[in-house]
């Protein structure tokens, strides 16, 4: 009969792409603005709804690629942007995409803070002809991508009828993207390609099948046996577990983005208020070991630069002073540095200037195994300079609270990520976020790093109206970071994925890093558009 | 330990007295009872009065469920009474728990019906007896005092040598031995009154005899007042000075044991004595049994809604109209002093007004009504052969 599964078998490999995510069963919710929706969680919202411009997180300094908008012009102080909407795009119900729709979308986000998941302070958006002017309350140089790349454009004629867009689950999404939703079950969603009306060439992939596996190991297994062809998941020992299963086709690409992971030190706790000690610690921490052992050699790409900026995404931002300076493990150097600073290494114990043995408590949630492994390694490394470390496997909620309130000695944590290193440094050094110990500072500066110069540089960078001022501020930030080492950078966030070239080729890779590869990023639609049948 | 062997009080002094003792157990209410005014109760014991005297054994007989155990428990004050009074040496007592309860139970001790159940299987004989001595302050001062007191207690109940039994667990004792331990425990309190609830019903004839002899010996040596509850009417004849018969929660007859057993006045007592197995009555082929069966038809009455008037009237072959309506008072029989029965047959006016048996369930003319106040042929010789 007309069972919904009847066509299951005739989905040929050459027309279907199987995407997987380890996110557990989903509820039917295709609201593109809600982080909690299945569409956002699995990423298919970007196959249905499109942003104005395409930005490449792998090469953050590259110019934006036109998408629904053909061009975007920022005001010099970056408080408003004028975008020109392409005229050949249509919604999947056949209506034309207009500037009205775009203005409506931004006003919608402005009106409902709950939909403003990027937290951009929009003022308003007005359409005139094919142009839309979007105004913001403050300069948004560092948030350009949040404005242009992160907002899915929705059709006004449908959304204006939705009474409460924050609780609407948008059962039948209508977007400008190449795909429409065909079926939904808690574990799998099928998207099929539009037959007409898309503004560029239709993708070769006729059907996208998203599967939400319940956990990492299920997802890994699916990847290994070819059930999943594209995913983003942590695979321990990925060479053996995934790649070796099909050497020829199974690939992992994990480019870094401008967001890092590292060891935050509480700069108010003695003796860690001493930059010399922090620098010495930095010198002995074996980032490469953490990269290979804890992150399976790919997941959090090693941060090599002393500035904490990952490569290649951060390369263009590195100050001339630090260009090419890579972090190396240097135990002797660290010891020398410490001795110079008045520390004594007695046997296996480091004594600070007051003669107290230096000990440190490393904290991270019990269940986060890569962090826990990292801490094990850090503990090992620190013992080389006589610092006795203990590892505290904390309760996740308590850890969150304690880190925000500054109740920790050292902890592994991430920074915010963005289009520029601003977000990294802001998370670590922003004096505007400085709160007394015991008061939460959710947005950053967990280590209570108190440095006016750094704060000023951050403000200057975000507000600057010319590149020179920005470069100066950036260089200052890097210098302070390297001198003071308020956080010891270890690895970067990656925005890649695991994939198979068995049926589809054309994936982004080091040779052609045209975009982020996570299936949940806006770039996903770009990736799919790049794919070609392997044997065709 | 000082058992009151040398007490100056005269034998036959009333120690414990029940006056109009009544116990109603509330029954679980059902939905429909919610709408009825009167709450349903089990009339377990109604208006029971008797006295226990020093050095005397009073037997309480009656069929199963007639309220004998309940009377004992009321007297021991384990159950609160619904109405009536309990007088210890003439003073009314009502104790609930605490110190006053303990001082009461020191004087009035209860031996429970079942020797297999009334000793805690996890404790030794020593524990049971020590507790009883300790609670009532009879344990003396040191360990030797206690040991001596224990030995004396066990010797008193003929469990000799005491060492052999002191550290035994109940399951290692025979039924008779257990029963004696239970009695020893009661004696440990140095009581004036012993309430013995069917102390022998579960035992073998030969063991049974031993226990009964022991009890009798106690009354004689220690001048204890004993309430002996049983439904073996023959043993009441042998071991009790006085016998009281209960039926469905009420006393129906009382008097000297020999008289009550040999010349029962109340139709129920007669049914009881006739039913009791008696080898002296060998008639062969169970004909006697058949005769008894004729009279004993019918089931015991419901105690929730007991029959009006005399509770026995639905089963009584001599029932008269008055029996169905009026509660019979105690009527003296007159053959022996103190022999009474609660039966209208012994009220000449009633008998004159209505033929006995006229209101009987299956009026059987062949059964002759008992002639009131006329002695039977067999001669009773009370209290001689022991």
């Amino acid at each position, binding site marked *: 009969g007309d069972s919904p599964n009847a066509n299951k078998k005739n989905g040929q490999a050459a027309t279907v792409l199987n995407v997987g995510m380890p996110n557990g069963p989903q509820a039917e919710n295709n609201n593109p603005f809600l982080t909690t929706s299945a569409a956002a969680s699995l990423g298919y919202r970007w196959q249905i709804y499109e942003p104005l411009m395409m930005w490449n997180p792998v090469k953050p300094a590259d110019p934006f690629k036109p998408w629904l908008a053909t061009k975007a012009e920022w005001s010099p102080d970056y408080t408003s942007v004028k975008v020109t909407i392409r005229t050949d795009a249509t919604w999947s119900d056949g209506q034309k995409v207009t500037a009205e729709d775009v203005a409506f979308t931004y006003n919608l986000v402005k009106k409902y803070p709950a939909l403003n998941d990027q937290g951009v302070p929009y003022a308003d958006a007005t359409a005139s002809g094919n142009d839309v002017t979007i105004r913001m309350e403050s300069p948004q140089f560092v948030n350009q991508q949040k404005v242009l790349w992160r907002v899915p454009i929705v059709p006004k004629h449908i959304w204006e009828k939705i009474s409460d867009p924050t609780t609407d689950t948008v059962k039948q999404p209508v977007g400008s993207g190449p795909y429409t939703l065909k079926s939904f079950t808690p574990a799998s969603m099928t998207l099929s390609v539009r037959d007409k009306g898309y503004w560029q060439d239709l993708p070769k992939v006729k059907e996208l099948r998203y599967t939400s596996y319940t956990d990492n190991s299920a997802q890994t297994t699916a990847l290994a046996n070819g059930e999943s062809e594209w995913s983003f998941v942590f695979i321990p020992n990925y060479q053996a577990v995934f790649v070796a299963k099909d050497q020829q086709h199974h690939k992992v690409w994990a480019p870094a983005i401008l967001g890092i992971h590292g060891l935050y030190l509480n700069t108010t706790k003695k003796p860690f208020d001493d930059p010399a000690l922090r620098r010495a610690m930095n010198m002995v921490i074996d980032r490469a070991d953490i990269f290979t052992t804890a992150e399976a050699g790919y997941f959090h790409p090693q941060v090599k630069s002393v500035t904490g900026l990952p490569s290649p995404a951060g390369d263009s931002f590195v100050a001339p002073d630090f260009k090419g300076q890579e972090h190396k493990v240097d135990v002797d150097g660290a010891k020398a540095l410490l001795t110079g600073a008045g520390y004594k290494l007695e046997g296996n114990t480091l004594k600070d200037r007051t003669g107290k043995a230096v000990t440190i408590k490393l904290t991270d949630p019990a269940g986060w195994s890569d962090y826990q492994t990292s801490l094990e390694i850090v503990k090992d490394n620190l013992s080389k300079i006589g610092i006795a470390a203990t590892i505290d496997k904390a309760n996740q909620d308590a850890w969150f609270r304690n880190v925000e309130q500054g109740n920790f000695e050292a902890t592994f944590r991430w920074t915010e990520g963005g289009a520029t290193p601003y977000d990294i440094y802001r998370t670590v050094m922003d004096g505007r976020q400085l709160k007394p110990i015991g008061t939460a500072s959710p947005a950053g500066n967990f280590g209570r790093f108190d440095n006016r110069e750094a704060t000023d540089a951050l403000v200057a960078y975000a507000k600057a109206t010319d590149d020179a001022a920005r470069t100066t501020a950036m260089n200052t930030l890097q210098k302070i970071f390297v001198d003071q080492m308020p956080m010891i950078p270890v690895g970067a966030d990656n925005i890649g994925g695991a994939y198979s070239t068995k049926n589809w080729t054309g994936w982004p890779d080091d040779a052609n890093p045209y975009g982020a590869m996570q299936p949940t990023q806006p770039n996903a639609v770009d990736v799919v558009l790049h794919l070609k049948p392997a044997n065709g | 330990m000082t058992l009151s062997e040398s007490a100056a009080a005269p034998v036959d002094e009333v120690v414990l007295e029940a006056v109009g003792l009544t116990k109603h157990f509330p029954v679980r209410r059902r939905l429909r009872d919610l709408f009825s005014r009167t709450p349903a109760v089990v009339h377990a014991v109604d208006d029971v009065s008797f006295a226990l005297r020093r050095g005397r054994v009073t037997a309480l007989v009656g069929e199963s469920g007639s309220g004998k155990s309940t009377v004992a428990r009321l007297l021991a004050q384990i159950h609160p009474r619904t109405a009536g009074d309990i007088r210890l040496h003439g003073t009314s007592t009502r104790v609930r728990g605490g110190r006053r309860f303990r001082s009461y139970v020191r004087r009035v001790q209860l031996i429970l019906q079942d020797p297999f159940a009334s000793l805690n299987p996890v404790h030794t004989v020593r524990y049971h007896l020590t507790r009883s001595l300790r609670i009532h302050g009879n344990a003396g001062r040191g360990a030797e005092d206690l040991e001596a007191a224990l030995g004396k207690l066990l010797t008193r109940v003929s469990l000799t040598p005491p060492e052999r039994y002191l550290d035994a667990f109940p399951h290692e004792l025979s039924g008779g031995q257990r029963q004696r331990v239970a009695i020893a425990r009661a004696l440990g309190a140095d009581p004036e009154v012993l309430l013995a609830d069917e102390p022998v019903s579960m035992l073998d004839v030969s063991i*049974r005899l031993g226990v009964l002899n022991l009890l009798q010996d106690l009354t004689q040596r220690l001048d204890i007042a004993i309430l002996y509850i049983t439904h073996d009417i023959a043993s009441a004849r*042998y071991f009790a000075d006085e016998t009281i018969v209960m039926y469905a929660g009420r006393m129906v007859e009382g008097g000297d044991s020999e008289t009550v057993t040999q010349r029962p006045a109340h139709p129920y007592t007669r049914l009881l004595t006739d*039913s*009791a197995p008696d080898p002296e009555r060998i008639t062969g*082929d*169970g004909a006697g049994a058949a005769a008894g069966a004729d009279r004993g038809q019918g089931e015991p009455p419901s105690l929730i809604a007991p029959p009006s008037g005399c509770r026995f009237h639905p089963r009584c072959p001599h029932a008269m109209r008055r029996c169905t309506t009026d509660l019979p008072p105690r009527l003296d029989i007159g053959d022996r002093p103190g022999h009474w029965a609660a039966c209208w047959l012994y009220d000449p006016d009633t008998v004159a007004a209505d033929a006995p048996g006229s209101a009987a369930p299956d009026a059987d003319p062949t059964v002759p009504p008992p002639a009131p106040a006329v002695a039977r042929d067999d001669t009773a010789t009370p209290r001689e052969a022991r």
Partner: protein
Amino acid sequence: MSDPVLEIRGLRVDYGLGDAAVHAVRDVDLTLHRGEVLGLAGESGSGKSTLAYGLTRLLPPPGVVSGGQVVYHPADGPPVDVLTLSPAQLRQFRWAETSIVFQGAMNSLNPVHKVSTQLLDVIKAHDPTSTAAARRDRARELLRLVGIAADRLDSYPHQLSGGMRQRVMIAMALALEPQVVIMDEPTTALDVVMQRQILGQLAELRERLGFAVLFITHDLSLLVEFSDRIAIMYGGRIVEEAPARQLYRRALHPYTDGLLHSFPALRGPRRELTGIPGSPPDLRAMPDGCAFHPRCPKAFDPCDTRLPALGPPGDDDPGRAVACWLHPAAAPLTR
């Protein structure tokens, strides 16, 4: 005396095997005649129940029948040894030929089935061809026989009083009109009035149906009144056997004598009660010779070494047998 219906010869019943075995019944010879009531009395633990269960092979583990014969003489057909029957044959034999009434009626009736179910399934098991209606009629009739209204058929056991339950068991025992009914202390839990009612009914039914009864109790006074013959057990053996009246008048075995002097009589002159001194023997370590000799007031020379055999007493009493050196039998046994 009529012919035997059940002959027990040299029956031995043990609990356990090998050295640890408790010999609860030892070489018992007993004959039950057609239509008679044979009383079996004795102290607690003397093996009465064991004998009853042993001869129907209903002993629970670790009981085993370690020897002897139980010969049943059907009304028609050749005699059979019950102990050699196969389980299937045994099932056929049971209840149809020999039924049992156990001590506690509450425990003998399955609490979750109606009285009718339990009555009917025994009829059905032995007469599968009968119609349901016929079976039901029979069940009604049976209940009426023991004086219970037929409308009680659909009651559950707990809805009946103790006496009624016991009567239901008797009705059930008679359902297939067996030749032999074994009753193990059927009335101990009941009060005397009820006991008499039931025994009266039983006597009547026996008159009408003519089955033989093996009646077990330790209440001698009851037996004397109710049975034709009485056998007395002590320490796993029959120590005396005699017609009821004769036994009561004159006990030959000192143990029987002790028993008779242990219970008070309701009527007649007050007798002296002497009781039996000492305590029952340990079945694991039975004294040599006559098991009763340590407690026997009249024990003399051979008693503690040689076992007296059950045989006719030396004097002229017919139909009696006793195992006591005071009354040496024709052929004394030594084991």
